[in-house]
């Protein structure tokens, strides 16, 4: 393969050799001299007053170095950081907490004390010796009950569990509904639940903290998606100067948003290291991960839609209720407001969209960003609404979608929600998907099979989502991304990115960008990330933004250095810089291609500098910050076919087609991988996954024996295709693909199963028993 073909090439990943041989280093793979081990004692109650804690026996266990409770943290460690606290209550402290429960526990898994010991086994044993007296308090684990005036309160001083309530007047939208009915149209109404999920990255969280007292320097290794944000907030939380904290993110075993956060254990390990003067390691156990790492989704939504009798949607009306859990984590409070509400028009040119929203505390683990973060909830509501309308007007769901799509010539398009979509061609993706699955034939087969008593169904989802976040004002800090590009003396290139990939493969795709731009072999490029002492201030990897935002910074860095190299090459070739071009790793002069210097020769000249003219600054290094002016809006259509066993209610997915449009693809192999993984997580939500608490606030899904996720035998072979509608938001024309599969798949699977059973709607997860009850009217 020629270097010029690097962009868009399905090359295999450069990360993989260390990963497939067991040589990669995750946090738990590290040992520091004198390192201690931390374990966390957690609440077994959903809501309780702590009347006493006795740590004597635990402290006396041989090997135990320290036992720490909230008392020890007072005035030394600040609250868990929250990125965007919302008025009125949250800005006044509602939902904020110290890293250890102070007087009260509010969810099963709430950290109460830590043990630091010479080894893990002793640290675990000591937990059993800590005596805590709890006085149980009334529990509220249901979000709608939590909104009732007589509900038990998590924060009695605020007199409510509702943190923020946005209820604009609905008079205008109600008039549209009335008008639609008067004109012979239809309306639909449904309460739909987007259940609570556990992100379940295969690597649990982990931290190592090392503190050097002589100059108050904290080194913190963390399995994180956000090294710089973690560094900045943790420094503040611990009362250290920002430059006294260095965060290093080694290999990370998946995140899906769950590591886009600053958790109690980071501050706790750091505090323990500062207290003991020895490095402290904490590795989360899976039962802790399921109990105390953030959960995702958990919205109860009321959806209403009005449409003409042909199925043209005239208005959408939503009430979004977001279950925050017991405390605020980094983005807990803004997921519904910032990411669900703007997407409530989906891919459809609906003239009127109304939403009201309540975000509410309950006695459960905090919720926060999980793959899709607010957009899957929006897509699910809109896609379900379109299906219900199709059912009401007795038209095919594909036809109703085609009737309502925003048309290609309408972009850029401001939706009724206020969101500005960059580009799109929704009908093209849907039509391609219909062709691939041979939709008409499939529907005909469905009729035949149904006649024979088979429960077969087909579901369509035409999603759109927000990526490439983002422009100014989205968060209290700019969501730009950064790259430092350095060309070394031999012509090799090092890129320090402010993003923090953890499985997405940017060590490969970013190198493809550089290799492509400079015309040098990819082996000559090294991509480094995850160390706040060497990488420029960045925002990390989440929200499908790494390539669109971080990749653009890398690309712009390469352009800047290319210009400088042209100047140097011009001096070497005694030509005018504007006549010099770079091709296949050679700088040459227009008109005289035999007059050339190699990329490496120019790099050597720049770095050794003796031969450089005085007016050229030595070295080849630049740092670029890219802040997009707008977001990107990837889209696509997924079609799912299922068969349900009438005796048992078990679902088999028989076909799955996905046509996605993420703009230009730098590495199609990696794009497909992201879509595969996303689809399967979405199938997981549709069919299997659910975090369950009982009414007493006890978590019932504490291990993978109870929290079901997709495994290989449950899945069909996925059939992928794509369309390419570039975006003008960034010069690469890329949009983002990390969450698309998850957003697109869930509604398609639910629609297919509802179709198979001939019902309008079924709440997820579509477990066999639930379906069996519908089939048998139990």
């Amino acid at each position: 393969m020629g270097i010029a073909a690097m962009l868009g090439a399905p090359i295999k990943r450069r990360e993989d050799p260390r990963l497939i041989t067991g040589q990669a280093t995750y946090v738990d793979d590290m040992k520091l001299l004198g390192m201690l081990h931390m374990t966390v004692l957690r609440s077994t109650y959903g809501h309780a007053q702590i009347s006493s804690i006795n740590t004597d026996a635990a402290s006396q266990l041989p090997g135990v170095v320290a036992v720490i409770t909230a008392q020890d943290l007072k005035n030394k460690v600040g609250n868990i950081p929250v990125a965007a606290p919302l008025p009125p209550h949250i800005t006044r402290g509602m939902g904020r907490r110290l890293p250890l429960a102070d007087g009260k526990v509010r969810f099963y898994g709430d950290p109460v004390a830590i043990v630091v010991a010479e080894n893990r086994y002793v640290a675990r044993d000591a937990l059993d010796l800590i005596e805590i007296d709890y006085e149980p308090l009334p529990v509220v684990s249901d979000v709608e009950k939590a909104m009732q005036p007589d509900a038990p309160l998590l924060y009695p001083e605020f007199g409510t569990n509702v943190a923020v309530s946005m209820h604009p007047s609905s008079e205008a939208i109600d008039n549209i509904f009335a008008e639609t009915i008067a004109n012979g149209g239809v309306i639909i109404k449904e309460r739909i639940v987007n259940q609570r999920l556990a992100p379940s990255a295969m690597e649990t969280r982990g931290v190592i903290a090392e503190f050097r007292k002589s100059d108050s320097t904290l080194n913190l290794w963390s399995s994180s998606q956000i090294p710089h944000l973690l560094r900045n907030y943790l420094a503040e939380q611990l009362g250290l100067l920002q430059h006294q904290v260095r965060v290093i993110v080694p290999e990370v075993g998946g995140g899906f948003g769950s590591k886009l956060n600053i958790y109690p254990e980071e501050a706790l390990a750091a505090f323990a290291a500062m207290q003991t003067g020895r490095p402290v390691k904490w590795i989360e156990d899976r039962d802790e991960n399921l109990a105390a790492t953030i959960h995702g989704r958990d919205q109860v939504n009321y959806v209403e839609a009005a449409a003409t009798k042909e199925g043209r949607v005239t208005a959408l009306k939503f009430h979004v209720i977001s279950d925050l859990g017991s405390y605020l984590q980094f983005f807990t409070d803004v997921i519904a407001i910032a990411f669900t509400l703007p997407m409530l028009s989906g891919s459809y040119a609906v003239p009127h969209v109304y939403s009201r929203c309540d975000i509410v505390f309950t006695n459960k683990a905090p919720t926060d960003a999980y793959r899709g973060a607010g957009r899957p909830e929006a897509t699910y509501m809109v896609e379900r609404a379109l299906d219900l309308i199709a059912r009401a007007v007795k038209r095919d769901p594909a036809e109703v979608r085609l009737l309502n799509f925003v048309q290609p010539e309408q972009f850029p398009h401001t939706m009724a929600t206020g969101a500005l979509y960059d580009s799109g061609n929704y009908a093209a993706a849907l039509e391609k998907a219909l062709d691939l699955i041979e939709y008409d034939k499939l529907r005909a087969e469905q009729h035949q099979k149904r006649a024979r008593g088979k429960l077969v169904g087909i579901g369509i989802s035409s999603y759109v989502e927000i990526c490439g976040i983002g422009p100014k004002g989205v968060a209290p800090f700019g969501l730009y991304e950064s790259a430092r590009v350095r060309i070394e003396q031999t012509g090799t290139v090092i890129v320090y990115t402010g993003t923090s990939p953890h499985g997405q493969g940017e060590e490969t795709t970013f190198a493809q960008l550089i290799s492509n731009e400079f015309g040098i072999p990819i082996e000559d490029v090294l991509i480094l990330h995850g160390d706040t002492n060497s990488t420029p201030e960045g925002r990390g990897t989440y929200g499908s933004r790494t390539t669109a935002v971080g990749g653009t910074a890398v690309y712009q860095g390469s352009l800047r250095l290319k210009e400088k190299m042209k100047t140097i090459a011009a001096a070497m070739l005694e030509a005018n810089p504007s006549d010099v071009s770079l091709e296949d790793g050679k700088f040459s002069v227009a008109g005289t291609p035999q007059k050339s210097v190699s990329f490496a020769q120019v790099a050597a000249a720049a770095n050794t500098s003796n031969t450089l003219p005085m007016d050229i600054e030595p070295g080849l290094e630049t740092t670029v910050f890219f802040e997009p002016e707008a977001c990107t809006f990837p889209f696509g259509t997924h079609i799912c076919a299922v068969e349900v066993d009438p005796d048992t209610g078990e679902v088999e997915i028989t076909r799955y087609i996905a046509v996605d449009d993420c703009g230009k693809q730098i590495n199609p192999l990696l794009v497909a991988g992201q879509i595969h993984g996303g689809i399967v997580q979405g199938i997981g939500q549709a069919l299997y996954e659910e975090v369950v608490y009982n009414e007493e606030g006890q978590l019932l899904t504490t291990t993978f024996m109870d929290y079901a996720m997709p495994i290989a035998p449950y899945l069909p072979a996925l059939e992928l295709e794509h369309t390419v509608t570039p975006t003008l938001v960034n010069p690469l024309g890329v949009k983002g693909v990390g969450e698309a599969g998850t957003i697109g798949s869930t509604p398609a699977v639910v629609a297919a199963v509802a179709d198979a059973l001939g019902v309008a709607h079924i709440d997820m997860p579509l477990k066999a028993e639930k379906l069996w009850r519908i089939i048998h009217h139990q």
Partner: protein
Amino acid sequence: MSVPAVFDYHPVQSVDEAIALLQLYGDEAKILAGGHSLLPAMKLRLTQPEHLIDIGPIPNLAYIRKEKDAIVLGTLTRYKQIEQSEILHKYYPILPEGTALIGDQQVRNRGTIGGSVAHSDPAGDMPGIVLALKAQLVVQGANGTRTIAADDFFVDTFLTALEQDEIVTAIRLPLPAPHTGSAYAKISNKASHYAIAGCAAVLTINKKGLCTSASIAITGASTRIIRASEVEAALISKKLDDATITSASSHAVANADLISDIHGSAEYRQQMAAVITRRVIMHALERA
């Protein structure tokens, strides 16, 4: 941090040695075979034995052999050996077939038939299969060796007829009568792969096409491992047509104390026991 509490470890080389230690430590001791039931419970500290007697090193307890009137499996026979056993495929396909549904290949490489039987977990597959096969469990204790019929062995959840100082040394399966068919299947919990409801069936059909013997056991659905005696009674002396099988299967968990949890309500388990029983009987019948 999932690690067992502290215990003393006693690897033993003989059954006698294991029994002597059981006598010495009484309730404080547990027997470790493959460890795939015991170790997870110890890691979650649901059980904290002070003494662990590892019978793994005892030689000659992992075997499958055909004797004159029985097929005998040593207590340490691993699931994988059962899956691959030609003898079992020939005489009792229910065993390799059912075993292939236990856990996953890694678990089947470690788990032992004796360990599973002695654990008496009603959600496990093996106890039900052993029960349907009318196995005789050979147990050895301080007072020597005795044989317990599977029907008498499984007393309750995690409770067997074993005395404190006894261990299972072998499982004897009577040789099947001619025209005997056996099968096992289950509807699984999608997370743990344990049975929501499973059925093990062994049927014998005579020349007239009548069922002369039926042995049916239900896994997963109830709080203890049970024979479905009402199903058996409804099959015996009958010609097994669809209607008879469907009607008989509907009694799969009659009078049983059913499990109800987030993976399946009692009602669902009851109905699924009927569904899976019908399917398994059909399958066993094809093999008879």
